[in-house]
């Protein structure tokens, strides 16, 4: 005979939990660190800009938080925040791309996978673009391409430095060759910035792959990355399928790229602003 008995009839009398309530009750307060698997009080994690207080692992932050981290007083003026893709291919997969876009726009409060802004970094006016990794994988289509181009043009017109924080799976498949050509368009813009002798600092965060790495993310006067970020051209799964063997530990992580000469430095998130400020003094003063 058991000590406790479950009375099945009672379940129906209890108030039903909606999915929303369930999530609030179970997932709201604690978070498991991807690095050390420890449970962390979520507010502590957020206060530390999503860097684990126990092991230092960097988990992703959204574009808004990124700008607050880097800009003085967390203040900035946004540009082109209402640009929306008009679905040039009429692309349909599990659902129409236009519907997917609308869903993402509602979920993130952004029109596409980037915030373009202007603000002060250690007292110096900069043009800055931060990618939003949650918006269709932070993928780059015609809107991201245009936002960066306009940021470059503002930088040239005002003779200000450009900073782009990448967090992206690459070119946006749903815009086909249109998104592919954004790579050439942005890179041509960066050629103009280069000719104007204005600094461009590329900050690579987890993840930066595909067409974003193979265009603007690798073209900074300085390319710096956060620790442990996945950075590469081909995705790890594609490479495994091609060579049919397991990839070595740490392959395509920031530290791997640093060792192979692709990055100037790996900089922890909490030191990022100071690092960029010091670099800008070299370039501009």
């Amino acid at each position, binding site marked *: 005979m058991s000590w406790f008995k479950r009375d099945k009839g009672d379940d129906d009398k209890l108030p039903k939990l909606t999915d929303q309530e369930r999530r609030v009750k179970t997932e709201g307060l604690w978070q498991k660190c991807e690095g050390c698997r420890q449970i962390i009080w979520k507010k502590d994690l957020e206060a530390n800009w999503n860097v684990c207080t126990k092991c230092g692992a960097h988990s992703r932050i959204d574009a808004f938080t990124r700008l607050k981290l880097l800009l003085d007083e967390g203040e900035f003026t946004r540009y082109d925040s209402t640009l929306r893709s008009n679905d040039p291919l009429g692309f349909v997969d599990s659902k129409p791309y236009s519907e997917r876009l609308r869903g993402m726009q509602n979920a993130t409060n952004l029109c596409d996978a980037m915030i373009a802004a202007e603000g002060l970094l250690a007292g110096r006016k900069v043009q800055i673009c931060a990618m939003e990794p949650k918006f269709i994988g932070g993928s780059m289509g015609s809107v991201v391409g245009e936002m960066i181009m306009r940021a470059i043009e503002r930088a040239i017109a005002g003779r200000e430095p450009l900073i782009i924080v990448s967090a992206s799976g690459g070119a946006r498949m749903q815009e086909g060759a249109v998104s592919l050509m954004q790579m050439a368009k942005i890179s041509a813009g960066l050629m103009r910035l280069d000719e104007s002798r204005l600094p461009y600092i590329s900050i690579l965060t987890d993840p930066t792959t595909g*067409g974003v790495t193979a265009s603007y993310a690798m073209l900074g006067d300085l390319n710096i990355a956060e620790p442990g970020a996945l950075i590469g*051209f081909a995705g790890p799964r594609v490479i495994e399928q*091609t060579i049919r063997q397991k990839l070595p530990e740490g392959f395509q992580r920031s530290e791997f790229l640093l060792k192979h000469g692709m990055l100037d430095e790996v900089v922890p998130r909490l030191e990022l602003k100071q690092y960029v400020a010091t670099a800008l003094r070299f370039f501009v003063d």
Partner: protein
Amino acid sequence: MEGVNSPENFDGVTVPGGNAAWRRVQLARHPKRPHSLDYIGRIFQDFQEIHGDRNFGDDPAIVAGLAHFEGRPVLIVAEQKGRDTKQRFFRNFGMPKPEGYRKALRVMQMASKFGRPIITFLDTPGAYPGIDAEERGQAEAIARNLREMARLSVPVVVICIGEGGSGGALALGVGNTVLMLENAVYSVISPESCAAIIYRDSAKAEQAAAALRLTAEDLKSLGLIDGIIPEPAGGAHEDHDAAAESLRTHLSARLSELDSLSADQIVEHRYEKFRRMGNFFA
């Protein structure tokens, strides 16, 4: 070569079928389709290959060389696939590595220095996805080419002759004029990979091919290329000579269009063209 034109004689390759876009993909990859060197031999004179990136090695997936086109010196940079098994391995199935893109950039900057027009042929499934390529900076090599091609002060004519495989093709694709052969395709991702990601089933490649809008007509209507070069009936593989002749006449016309532009105008012309590309937002 008797019966080569009949559909049942495709070297064991499935006969092109399915939707129109997928048929194009099959034609673009057809084993008998002319590759870069097939065109180079027919269109150019005095071709002399030049090798190496002066840094790591020479990549056989990209062929570069000095040549004459209708009496004038030009530089050729071309992605090259192999025909038989041995050649395919040698050319790494037309998938360039960073040293290939760096060789291409080195020779294009040389041509720019001496005021010689550049002609590039795109024909690759994509840049090579491998450990060594990543270690040597595949992404950096492609990115640098995109930026530096924008700076070249000589006319650049790009012709996609078969597979325009994403960034691996675009790394040689920043031209004043970009043309595609009628049955070539140009895409951000292969239909197979697209299907694997979106439909979680690479067998739905046919469906993905149509969705990606990757045919020459599609790219033309999206304003991403400047023109389409017609192929002989049935496709370029049916008659290499006729395909080459068609390519030659179009190249000749396009190259002379650019002749009147000064070095500064050439850079400006190329920049303006890419600046306007993909204005699909509101």
